[in-house]
């Protein structure tokens, strides 16, 4: 009789990661919820402008400061613009700022940190000195200073956020690179003839990425709060562009006299989005390294 037992196919790393993720999501309803929420926000960011009932920039003097009702779910602001439309459309901008900041700081901080940990020597010292100098400032104050110096544009907000988070990413990346360097990855790779840069990008960076991914989710939340905070004090995006932070700023004065919807809905959107990213970060931490759960 022929042996009919089949050999189980060896799972690719991606397949085992997905299976592990599904397991964690099943065990952890909170993370699943955060994931679902994240998808909702992503949808709003991608398709929001097409789907909103009103033009976010269209003012209507007959309809100023109306509380939430059937036609205007979130009410109207002081120029008669529909708050719901503005809040939804603003998702795209805030989401973009978050993603761009995080991508930039991953590249800047990740590469610098990995190089510092891998090569050591003067690169390590320079990166360390830069990181220390940045960390000597209260972070929001530094972001204020950078945006004030360079000008109120979205690009500068993204840059300021990236700079302010640079030390953290550099430090994490450096530690991981150091560990890998000690662990003999490097010797093995060198022995097989790989140039330094190839080792760096091919071996070390992919290993550092999962650990940074957790931090990136948290940084996305921070980036949005940062941008909103800067916009709130007038240093961020300029009106009439819909962005959650300036919407809260514009609505602040009315809140004091009882017209709460103007500032409340963009603020709530901020909170829910950041909350989602934080929960997601915690969940990702469980997927990536369950030992580090707090």
């Amino acid at each position, binding site marked *: 009789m022929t042996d009919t037992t089949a050999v189980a196919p060896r799972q690719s790393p991606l397949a085992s990661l997905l299976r592990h993720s599904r397991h964690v999501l099943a065990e952890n309803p909170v993370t699943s919820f955060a994931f679902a929420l994240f998808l909702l926000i992503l949808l709003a960011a991608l398709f929001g402008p097409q789907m909103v009932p009103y033009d976010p920039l269209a003012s209507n003097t007959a309809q100023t400061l109306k509380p939430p009702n059937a036609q205007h779910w979130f009410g109207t602001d002081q120029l008669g613009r529909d708050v719901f439309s503005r809040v939804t459309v603003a998702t795209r901008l805030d989401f973009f700022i978050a993603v761009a900041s995080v991508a930039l700081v991953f590249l800047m901080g990740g590469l610098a940190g990995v190089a510092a940990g891998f090569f050591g020597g003067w690169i390590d010292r320079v990166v360390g000195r830069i990181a220390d100098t940045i960390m000597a400032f*209260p972070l929001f104050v530094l972001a204020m200073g950078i945006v004030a110096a360079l000008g109120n544009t979205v690009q500068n907000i993204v840059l300021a956020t990236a700079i302010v988070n640079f030390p953290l990413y550099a430090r994490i990346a450096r530690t991981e690179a150091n560990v890998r360097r000690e662990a003999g990855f490097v010797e093995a790779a060198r022995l097989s003839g790989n140039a330094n840069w190839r080792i760096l990008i091919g071996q070390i960076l992919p290993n550092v990425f999962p650990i940074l991914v957790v931090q990136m989710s948290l940084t996305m939340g921070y980036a949005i709060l940062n941008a909103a905070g800067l916009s709130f004090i007038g240093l961020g995006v300029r009106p009439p562009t819909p962005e959650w932070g300036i919407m809260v700023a514009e609505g602040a004065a009315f809140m*004091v006299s009882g017209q709460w919807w103007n500032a409340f809905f963009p603020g709530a959107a901020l909170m*829910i989005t*950041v909350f989602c990213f934080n929960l997601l970060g915690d969940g990702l931490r469980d997927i990536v390294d369950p030992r580090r759960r707090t």
Partner: protein
Amino acid sequence: MMTLIIKRAAMAIPSLIGVVVVTFLLTRLLPGDPAAYFAGPAATPQAIQEVRVKLGLDKPLIQQFSHYVVDLAHGNFGTSLTTGQPVVTELRTRLPASAELTLLGLLVSIAIAVPLGIIAATRPNSLLDHTCRIVSTAGVSLPVFFTGLILIYFFYYWLGWAPAPLGRLDVFYLAPPQVTGFYLIDSLIAGDPQTFAAALKQLVLPALTLGVFSLAPIARMTRASMLAVLSSDFIRTARANGLSNWTVVITYAFRNAMLPVITTLGMVFSFLLGANVLVEKVFAWPGIGSYAVEALLASDFAPVQGFVLTMAAMYVILNLVIDVLYGLIDPRVRLEA
């Protein structure tokens, strides 16, 4: 003990130097003409040129830097365009307002977060523990200016308990004679309980806003640290020796758990200094944060530079204090220094 302080102070000096250099570079290496920034948006080309010469902006960078440092050493932070006053004077007058607010906010935060963290750690996985974690995560997600506005809406507009968010004192009251600049302290020194009460009333909401903001990291760190300490060997010994629950949890566990919490306070203070700016805007608080923001919006650059420098210097000094405090509590650090 002294050696510890001196050592830590020495380590703070490179940070201070870095701060001075960066604030210098922020203004000099701007795209565009720095002189135009300092002259203001309404200046004529001639006025800009005058400013350029006056501020030495036509000289080589190194020379500019040495002038800058000398000026700083003499306490000269430049002059504000909008008010015509020396920046350092205005900063000095406004600093106590910010300090009083931030310190009170931090106190509120610690008073709530630390007991919450301790209780959550002593009852892991209980309802209270889960509530603590959710509140922490939510707290971290709330934009601080939003919290302030919500609090105003509920406590001022809706309930009428809090006064109007119009600054440090209601219009009817005069500031107490200046001793420290802290209204709470000065009014007590002057023996004026009504002013004390009035100042306190104005402080409640903004301090609470800052407190809510910094609640999360402190509660989280306290809980994590307590959990780690409570499962350590020496706690088991303490329990085996029959020490009371209070002694075990507070005298033994908490004092050890406090160490990482104190280190976290440094980071929390960094966030608070930033949040301060936003809270001052919401509550019309006359501190250095609102000073900087007003100057920024008027494109008045010298106050902003002075503000960033001051904040950063305060932060460096604060971290130094925290390091020393850590040494006071942990004899291992003190005796190995």
